[in-house]
Every structure is written in structure tokens, then in C-alpha cells.
């Protein structure tokens, strides 16, 4: 390549103040292979781009270097300009003489010399550039949504309403997630079920949503636009196609005293059950660990009673495959399990609160069920131990949150708000009751949020103490809560009838396994990683996989819903076209020289390299080789650095280019 045009930008004063652009342009013009060298005040503006286009045509340029800002800023701009002028866009390189030169230096002479060197490297790179073509990948225009909580529901409905098919996988017997179990929601105190259940019904009835409840993602294969998902439908022992949801089975089941998962142990359910009356689908499942028929071939009453003949005790797990183009992960959260044996001993704190020892010390989700109209007490607040109405309730926030010593270092974000809500709900139900709150800080950022907390304190009379609780003991049927009021500087002892612990939010069980299947990142706590915390908040680093809701970080309902809609709109953009275009700057393997050691397969963080065979046109085996899947490769270059036979190379950033650049400096 010997007809290279170099365009040096002043960036107004940004570059020109420190770099002598005339001098640079003059020296660059003398480099071998440079056909023309110009400078201009704003290269990215229309006249600047026109200059580039014009020179490509008039000088028949076969390579372009724009010496200006970071390629993150304007590489796309100039590649597009070059393409308009008929030059392959991958023959355009940027020399960053702003962020990496003029902005960080003061000495004009030295900065000018450095700018020249930077441009010389870029010229050397362009000389070795190859014309590349963007990769086109066909798209399966369907999406998978993992998790049927409020975030998953929102994402699924948005995508389906836009006209694309959605496959939803939910591991519980019903969709609805945590929100279905909440009583009323902050800061408006509207009933959680009233706003969620219509959305659940919409999912259940939507012609473009295929719902797999009581199912889990077993395996994920393929790549962006072309995922093959294997789903495990867990044995339900009820034929959903025959069942009418009449309820005869769960009414007749004699084993009614099993702890209800939906009520977090605050209520009971039969061995055959629907988790709650508004469940979607409204079809029961049999808990095989409790059913007398499945354990010892006894009972079988539900089968006899079922007129639809929907009970099938021989049911087994089934694996089904679905093809999708994009995935939204919305697997939600669980609460930190207070003082129970945990895989990490550092998380075993808070034995001093006696959770699990005293029946009336409960966590905040359990409290939600006790004040929910659909809860086990029908919305009458009765304490678990003896059913008495608690006249004094202590709420402790930050249990497990913001605690490096025995919990998790992060703030769970929503507990300040729901604890304020709890004190209000409590006061609205028990008018002569007194709520006490121990807190570290009140974090109520959000529309109408701080006003809400003030209302709890000023109108509903909750007493707030800034301080921690050191111990809870039981005496004469009362819970003795000993804590500190650090603002008053005094120890506080409260005789309470019930204690509610606002436990930290953690990602749902199994998140790490799922993330590994999907090949997406997660942090040390298991929360899924976004691609960029500000600019790509719902994308992951694996193309075609998006995240929404509390699987990403602790968040409340409005935020989870907003993020779900954002993820859905990203999916819609992807599914709007028949094929995807991807940048071709990815790894390629020279299959002739590949020694088939497959070191690259083991090191590729994106599982983008497969084993393949080279065969003659007649099909005779020649050799094994590694082969890059262009749909999956993210162009990180790990394979290039590990390949012992130097058969892997990064297109647009080849070893040859790098060596040429380094040598040009010598």
C-alpha cells in the first residue's frame, strides 16, 4: 500500500495548542508511502470529512490515517466517510494525538515530536491493513426470557407486543416472582398483586409468548442471533393440557401441613398445590418429596378425584429445545439467609438476633406475607409464635448489608424504603401499635421516596433510632432488643412482640451456574455484570445476551421494570433485521498450519473456537484444526497470544502489523 493519505486534525485548540500541526503534516508527507498529508481545524466536521472523501477520490488513496482523537470517539465517523468515497472502511486507522499526546503534555516541541511518532506508527499499520468485510450472521427472530418475575414479565410483554415470539422459562410453578408475594408497594402503597396479576395473565394468554413454568435452562449452545436452548421441564405430575385448575386435587390432599415456599414458611400448603390462587399457569404441581403416592405408593386420592384425569404419577423430567436469537436474563434475587450455615463462613453472621431461634424474629419477605391480604393470615397481622397481634414491633435495617465483617459490603438499596413502608402498613393495621426502626443511614433517593419516609415518621409515628442492635433475647414472652441510639448517645432497650430483619439482597440461587452456561460475567457476589456501567447497562459482554432486574444489582420495582424495558428494546433492535452485522476484527486461524493442540479452545473466554476437520473435496480426512466461530468471537486476542504455532491472528490487528509498527520506531 503506497497511496496513503494522512489527515491531521487541530481539534480546535485541543491539539493545535500543544502540537505544531503544520510541522507534523510536513514531516509526515515525507514518510514512504504517504501520498498526501493535510491538516484542518475540525476534521470530524462536515468540511473535514469532505476533505477526506475528496482526497480519497482525487489521489486514489488506498489507505487513510486520521490523526486526531481516540478511535472510540470517531473511528466510525471516518470509516463511514471513507466508505462513501469508495474505500474499504477497514483501511482507515486513527492516530490518537489528543488524549495520548496534546492533552497530557505541555512542552510543544516534545509533543510535536511524539505526535509525529504516533502518526508514523499508524501509517505503518495502514500499510499492512487488509480490506475486510463485515460479518453477517442470520438471526432467529425469537427471544428467550429467563425468569418470570416483574422484570421478566415486562421484558417478555414488550418484546412480544413488538411482534416477536418470546420463550419464557420460570423455575417456580408460577410466574410472578417476588413481587407476587408483596403486600403493598412503596411509595404509593398500591397493592402489589393488583398491579402485577393482570400482567401475569397477559403473559399466560399472549399468542406470542410460550411459557415454560416449573422449568430451568439446562444448556445453552450457539451464538448471537442463533442460540439453541435446552430447557428442562421438571416433572409436575400433572398434565397441564388436561388439567382445568378446578382445585379438587389440592382440596382432597390429606398432607396439608407442608411449609409454603410462597409464604416463606409463614403458611402451609398441601403436597399437591398451586403456590397462590392467582398463579399463572393456574395448574398445580406435586411436591415429590412430600407426596405419599410418590414416596411409598400410598394415598393417590387426588388421582381418584381428578375428573380430567390429569394426574400422572409416572411423569418425568423432559428436555425440550428452543431456537432463539436473543436472551434476557431476569432471574431476580433472594434474601441473605440470616445466621444459617452458609457456603462462605464470612456470611454466617447475625446469630445475635436469634433468627431461627425465636419464632417472632422474621425477615422482611415473611413480614410482607403476614400483612398481605392474600397471605396466610388474610392480611391480619398475627405473630408466628402464638397468633397474638404484636403491639410493639422492631425493624432492623441493613442486616447483612454494608457489613464487611459478617455480611456483604454493598447497600441493598431498597430496605430503607420497604422498612418505612412496613412501619406504615403495621400502623395502618394495628392502630395502637408502635413501630421502632434501627438504621445506619436512611437512603431514600427517588421520586417521592424521602417524602414517604418522612410520612412514616411524622404521620404514622414510627420511632427511628440511628444505631445497631447488639442482641435480642427472650424474657417472659417478650423479645428484648438491646441496641444503641448513637445520635442521643444512649443505649436503648425495647421490649418487642415481634422483630423484622431487613436482610440483604443477594442474587437468586444458581446464578453462577446459569452465568457460566450463558458465558456472561458476574461479580464476587454473583450479580451479573453489565457491559458498561453507564453506556451499556443492560448488555452483557456476550453479544445477544441482556440483563434486567435484581439479578444485576439490588433494585426496586420501578427500576427493574425500566431496565427490563430497556433490555427489551435492545432485543427488538436486534430482531428487527434478518441478519446481524458484526465487526470483522476477530480472530482467524490458519487451518493449514494449526497443530491442533487446541490450547486456544481451552483458553478462549467466549467458547468461540471449535474443533474442526480439514477434508479433501471428496471427503478424505486431511487433518484436525481449530476453527473460529465468527458469531461468537469478541476479538480479544487471547488465542493469538497462546497459540504455540502462531496460527491464530487477529484480523485488522495482526502480529505482522504490530511488528511493523514497532520496527518503524527503531
Amino acid at each position, binding site marked *: 500500500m503506497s497511496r496513503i493519505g494522512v489527515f491531521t486534525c487541530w481539534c480546535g485548540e485541543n491539539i493545535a495548542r500543544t502540537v505544531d500541526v503544520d510541522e507534523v503534516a510536513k514531516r509526515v508527507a515525507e514518510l514512504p508511502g504517504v501520498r498526501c498529508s493535510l491538516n484542518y481545524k475540525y476534521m470530524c466536521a462536515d468540511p473535514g470529512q469532505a476533505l477526506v472523501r475528496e482526497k480519497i477520490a482525487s489521489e486514489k488513496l488506498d489507505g487513510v490515517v486520521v490523526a486526531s482523537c481516540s478511535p472510540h470517539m470517531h473511528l466510525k465517523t471516518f470509516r463511514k466517510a471513507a466508505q462513501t468515497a469508495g474505500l474499504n472502511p477497514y483501511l482507515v486507522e486513527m492516530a490518537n494525538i489528543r488524549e495520548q499526546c496534546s492533552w497530557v503534555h505541555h512542552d510543544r516541541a516534545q509533543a510535536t515530536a511524539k505526535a509525529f511518532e504516533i502518526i508514523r506508527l499508524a501509517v505503518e499499520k495502514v500499510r499492512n491493513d487488509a480490506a475486510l468485510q463485515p460479518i453477517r450472521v442470520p438471526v432467529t427472530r425469537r427471544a428467550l426470557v429467563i425468569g418470570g418475575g416483574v422484570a421478566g414479565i415486562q421484558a417478555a410483554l414488550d418484546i412480544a407486543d413488538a411482534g416477536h415470539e418470546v420463550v419464557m422459562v420460570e423455575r417456580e410453578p408460577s410466574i410472578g416472582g417476588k413481587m407476587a408475594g408483596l403486600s403493598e408497594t412503596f411509595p404509593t402503597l398500591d397493592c402489589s398483586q393488583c398491579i402485577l396479576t393482570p400482567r401475569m395473565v397477559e403473559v399466560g394468554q399472549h399468542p406470542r409468548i410460550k411459557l415454560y413454568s416449573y422449568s430451568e435452562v439446562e444448556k445453552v449452545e450457539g451464538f448471537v442471533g442463533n442460540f439453541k436452548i435446552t430447557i428442562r421441564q421438571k416433572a409436575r405430575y400433572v398434565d397441564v393440557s388436561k388439567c382445568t385448575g378446578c382445585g379438587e386435587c389440592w382440596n382432597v390432599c390429606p398432607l396439608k401441613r407442608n411449609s409454603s415456599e410462597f409464604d416463606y414458611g409463614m403458611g402451609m400448603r398441601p403436597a399437591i398445590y398451586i403456590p397462590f390462587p392467582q398463579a399463572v399457569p393456574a395448574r398445580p404441581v406435586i411436591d415429590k418429596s412430600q407426596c405419599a403416592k410418590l414416596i411409598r405408593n400410598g394415598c393417590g386420592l387426588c388421582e381418584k378425584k381428578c375428573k380430567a384425569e390429569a394426574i400422572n404419577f409416572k411423569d418425568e423430567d423432559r428436555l425440550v429445545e428452543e431456537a432463539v436469537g436473543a436472551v434476557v436474563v431476569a432471574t431476580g434475587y433472594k434474601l441473605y439467609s440470616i445466621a444459617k450455615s452458609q457456603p462462605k463462613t464470612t456470611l454466617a453472621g447475625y*446469630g*445475635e438476633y436469634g433468627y431461627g431461634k425465636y419464632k417472632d424474629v422474621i425477615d422482611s419477605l415473611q413480614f410482607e406475607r403476614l400483612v398481605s391480604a392474600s397471605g396466610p393470615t388474610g392480611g391480619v397481622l398475627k405473630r408466628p409464635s402464638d397468633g397474638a397481634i404484636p403491639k410493639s414491633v422492631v425493624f432492623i435495617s441493613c442486616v447483612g448489608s454494608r457489613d464487611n465483617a459478617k455480611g456483604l459490603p454493598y447497600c441493598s438499596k431498597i430496605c430503607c424504603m420497604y422498612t418505612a413502608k412496613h412501619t406504615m402498613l403495621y400502623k395502618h393495621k394495628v392502630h395502637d401499635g408502635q413501630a421502632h426502626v434501627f438504621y445506619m443511614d436512611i437512603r431514600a433517593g427517588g421520586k417521592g421516596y424521602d417524602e414517604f419516609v418522612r410520612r412514616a415518621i411524622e404521620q404514622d409515628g414510627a420511632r427511628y433510632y440511628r444505631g445497631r442492635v447488639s442482641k435480642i433475647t427472650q424474657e417472659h414472652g417478650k423479645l428484648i432488643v438491646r441496641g444503641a441510639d448513637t445520635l442521643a448517645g444512649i443505649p436503648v432497650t425495647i421490649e418487642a412482640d415481634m422483630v423484622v430483619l431487613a436482610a440483604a439482597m443477594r442474587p437468586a440461587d444458581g446464578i453462577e451456574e446459569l452465568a457460566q452456561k450463558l458465558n456472561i460475567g458476574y461479580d464476587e457476589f454473583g450479580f451479573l455484570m453489565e457491559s458498561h456501567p453507564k453506556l451499556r447497562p443492560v448488555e452483557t459482554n456476550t453479544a445477544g445476551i441482556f440483563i434486567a432486574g435484581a439479578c444485576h444489582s439490588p433494585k426496586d420495582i420501578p427500576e427493574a421494570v425500566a431496565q427490563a424495558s430497556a433490555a427489551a428494546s435492545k432485543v427488538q433492535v436486534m430482531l428487527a433485521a434478518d441478519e446481524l452485522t458484526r465487526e470483522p476484527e476477530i480472530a482467524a486461524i490458519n487451518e493449514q498450519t494449526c497443530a491442533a493442540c487446541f490450547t486456544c479452545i481451552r483458553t478462549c473466554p467466549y467458547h468461540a473456537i471449535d474443533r474442526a476437520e480439514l477434508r479433501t473435496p471428496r471427503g478424505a480426512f486431511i487433518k484436525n484444526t481449530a476453527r473460529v466461530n465468527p458469531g461468537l468471537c469478541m476479538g480479544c486476542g487471547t488465542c493469538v497470544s497462546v497459540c504455540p504455532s502462531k496460527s491464530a491472528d487477529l484480523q485488522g490487528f495482526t502480529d505482522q502489523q504490530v511488528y511493523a509498527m514497532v520496527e518503524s520506531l527503531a
Partner: protein
Amino acid sequence: MNIGYYPGCALHGSSNDYEQSLRACLGALDVQLDEMKDWICCGATAAHSLNHKLSLALPARNLAVAERDGFKQLFAPCPLCSMQLLKAKKAAGDERVRKELSEIVEADLRGESEVLNLIQMFEKIGVARLKSAVKAPPKSITAACYYGCLLTRPPDVVHFDDFEQPTSMETIVAALGAKTVEWNYKTECCGAGMTMSNEDIVLELAHKILSNAAEHGANCLVVACPMCHVNLDMKQAAVERRFGKKLGMVVYYLSDLVGLALGLSAEQLSINRHFVTQA
């Protein structure tokens, strides 16, 4: 079995009843205590409030000497001692600190020996073995097991039981055939640190502990710490005078109770030398 034994100051002084109880009880279970040579102060209380390095060096010296003399297990019946030894052991995990401490104490600190408190000693012997050795199950006893502050704390040093709601002592007491109660002050402070400087605090704390145990139906307390024993047993008369009520709570060492169940006499275990001998 022969086991390395680090008595510390208390068991050779104010609490030699504890040592007698241990030797009698463990002897009956074929455990001989082999007192390590040349031991020095464990570094509790005084040293660690003055100088951190000194508070590591003192137990480091003891641990290093025990290791030099080939003790793979070192039994420290006083929780202050066992905690200090474990602190030195933990510090030895950092190679730089280990070398520094070895230099200071002029002995090679390896930090490999196992440090046992009294409960762990019985766990080592085995609950099943204890059960089968019981000759006189103490059926009249309803015990409140009292762990105090240092048996379970600091958790990242001692790594023993649930540090807020421990149950290991109850398991052993139950194995003897005695009853235990659930109560509120298992791991609260007995005030030992204030025994000399502020008796008011000590009496108040001891009163809380003793009366709470009684309220929950216990007829005695069981401890595994000489300091706890001093405060709850020796000071009990003062507590009774201060709060104007009769408590009469017998305070046993865990080894007393095990010894009684094995058929040893109160004299052999030197229970008769306690201040409160019966209710």
C-alpha cells in the same frame, strides 16, 4: 493418651481447683496432661492493651516451645490462653510475621500445633466415649451452659462454634444425662476485665447472668473458663448482698460435671473448694 498442657497463670494460682478437676476428670478418661516446660504468660489482658507485638510474642513463645518439644496438640483450659495461642497461630500464617516473631522469641514458631479449649478436649475424646463412660448420670442437674466472651470470640481467630448462639457445651452436658436450658446470656460478658477496677459493673453483670439462668429454670451454671468461675462463684455472695436476694447458684466447671458423671467425688474434683457449694 498424653496431651500437651499449657496451664497459664490462673490454673497454677487462683483457680488451682480447676486444674485439680481437670486432672481428675481427664485422668479417669485415660488422658494424661503433660505440662509443657518453660511456659510464660499468655499475654492476655495486660499485654494486648499495651503493645500488639508483645501480645503476639508472648503466646508465640509458648507455641514455639510447645512445637519444639513435639506437642502436636496443646490443651489450654483457660479460654484467654487458648485465644492468645490461636492468635499467635493465626499470625504465623503470614510468613513475614512468622519469621519476625520467631526472631523475637528465639525459637522457631511454626504455628502448626492444634490448640484445644476444654470443650474441644471433650469433643476430641468423643461424645460416644463419654456416654459409655458415664456411671452416675447427674439427673438432678438442669444446667445453664455459660460460654462467656472468649470461648467463641473473636470468631475469625478461634473458629469455634456459633459465636452468638453456641451449642457445643450443651451437647456434652446432655451426653452425661443432665438437662440443659435455653437462656439469654450464654455469651455475654461476665465482667472479668473489671474485677479489680470496678466491682459495681462486675456485680451487675454477674447478677444478670445468674438470675437469668435461674429464671429459665437452671439449678446450676456450667463454665469452661477460670475467670467466669471467679466472677460467678466467688463474687456470688457479694451479688446476693448487693441485690438483696438469695441466688445459691452452684457454678461447675464442665470438667466437674463430667467427673461427677464418671463417678468421681466432689472432693476428688475439688468442688468442695468452690464458694457456692450447694443451693
